[in-house]
């Protein structure tokens, strides 16, 4: 179960906002996390607490293919992102780096900054504890669920390689 406070953002939060390219050579997730959202919310890295949740509207993660974008969000301590929609490369990168994404427009509209959310990833349930509301996220496609169940893309390739000798 994920439980944390809401940090709310608008639409089209791009990867340069999540982490500027000038930090692309940093590999330590905690170090990256300090610069999370720096261009649009300079204090975010200081304000965010472990287990908190980013809530945003549409097209979250648009822009570059940099895989450090979801790594940065995790490095900042954020446990999940709830949004109305996600940009496609960011979606793939989040799956590959283990950042939980939930597509749930109703939860986004109903949540205000500082609200406490509880997220059950196994059922896709998003509960706004502050407002006592419960929502269901759009489930991942079956293909993606199986990929995650197999331990992710890299794990599943390793298993195949192992089988092939």
């Amino acid at each position, binding site marked *: 179960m994920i439980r944390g406070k809401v940090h709310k953002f608008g639409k*089209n939060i*791009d990867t*340069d*906002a999540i982490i*500027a*390219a*000038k930090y*692309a*050579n940093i590999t330590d997730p905690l170090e990256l996390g300090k610069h999370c959202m*720096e*261009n*649009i919310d*300079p204090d975010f890295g200081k304000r965010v607490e472990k287990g908190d949740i980013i809530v945003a509207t*549409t*097209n979250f993660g*648009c*822009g*570059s*293919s*940099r*895989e*450090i974008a979801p790594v940065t969000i995790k490095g900042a301590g954020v446990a999940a992102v709830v949004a109305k*929609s996600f*940009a*496609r*490369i960011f979606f*793939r*990168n989040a799956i*590959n*780096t283990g950042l939980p994404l939930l597509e749930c427009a109703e939860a986004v509209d109903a949540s205000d900054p500082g609200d406490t959310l509880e997220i059950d990833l196994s059922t896709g349930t998003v509960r706004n504890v502050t407002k006592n509301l419960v929502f269901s996220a759009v489930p991942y*496609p079956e*293909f993606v669920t199986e*990929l995650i169940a197999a331990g992710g*893309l*890299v794990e599943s*390739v*390793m298993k*195949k*390689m192992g089988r092939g000798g």
Partner: protein
Amino acid sequence: MTLAEKILSAHTGRESVKVGEFVNVKVDMVMASDLTAHIAADQFEKMGAKRPFDPHKVVFVMDHFFPNKDVAAAEQIRRLREFSKKHDLLFIEAIDGGIEHVCLPEKGLVLPGDVVVGADSHTCTYGALGAFATGMGSTDIAVAMVTGEIWMKVPPTIKFNYQGKLPPWVTGKDLILYTIGRITVDGALYAAMEFTGEAIEELSMDGRFTMANMAVEAGAKTGIVAADEKTKAYMAGRTTRPYKVYTTDSAADYAAIVDYDVSKLEPQVAIPHSPDNVRSIGEVSDVRVDQVVIGSCTNGRLEDFEYAARILRDRRVHRDVRCIVIPGSQEVYLAALRAGIIEVFVRAGAVVGPPTCGPCVGGHMGILAAGERCASTTNRNFIGRMGSPRSEIYLVNPAVAAASAITGRLTDPKEVVDR
């Protein structure tokens, strides 16, 4: 099936694919840059891979922080050079290099009908050749490097039909900015954008590269133009590998068909801080600029420089403006040099740099201070993209960029030429 569906289908070894279906696709070229390849290399090693599926189909291009902008970039690039040598990969750096999306088509490494994946969002550029090309993250790219395959969800195709002849100084950049302005930055989310119509047929290959390049700015998985005689002429002499030309069936199902009459289009400007915040040049001509950048994977090709040179010839850059010109590749540089264009730029007071993504990605060679504004032929005007979060980027075509360099404010090329 649409052009995009046909290419995907051919690369899954099946007769057809359906929109929304998850498929494993065989890839013809896998690309990563100095910004992304190190994570792909880490994952490659983590997987315990001994070799890439085909070293001739994996290419690393050093372009974002090239020439090495600091010690960290230098270390990354050195490591990637060693990794490439060890695995005998294609490695493009200084001697015949440039920006990945300019270089790969030039070198005949991507062809019509190919499936290309790259750890860079602007990989969709190669769609201009009639290829299916899309950007992914480093881990996906590592898997493609090892297995020669990657999963994809078959995208719906939206057809964009551009009718009419383009007015003078209106380019592929203006068509794509206009389109993104109309449909917004998630207007083609997960979809393939197929560009057709009279204006596309008339458009040069360089103009088509510009359009396909910015498909990702509308959220698209790829932008694509069916290969035609211009494509074949472009490919001639660049490759000996056979390629296949696909076209959309007349009975194909598009998710949507969008018609634009572009015969009266003005040069377009995307104002801060989103590529869909688009105006006609006439609406923003009072905006002063401190810097002009002409280059990038969007507009760093010979035709772009020809446009800029027609404006800058025998004129002077405004004394308050830094005008930075960056050829997209060594090949573009040499062609521009031979055509006398580089001299035009230098005489006009522009600074000509080596091929690099540099300023576009806020790396180096043109970083903006707080309060500064830049007219740029690049592809993104996100907050802080080129430097200070308090700077501003205006996305324009190369002729507008050049005209703005002369007057010191956003300027319609007509105004300078007719003066």
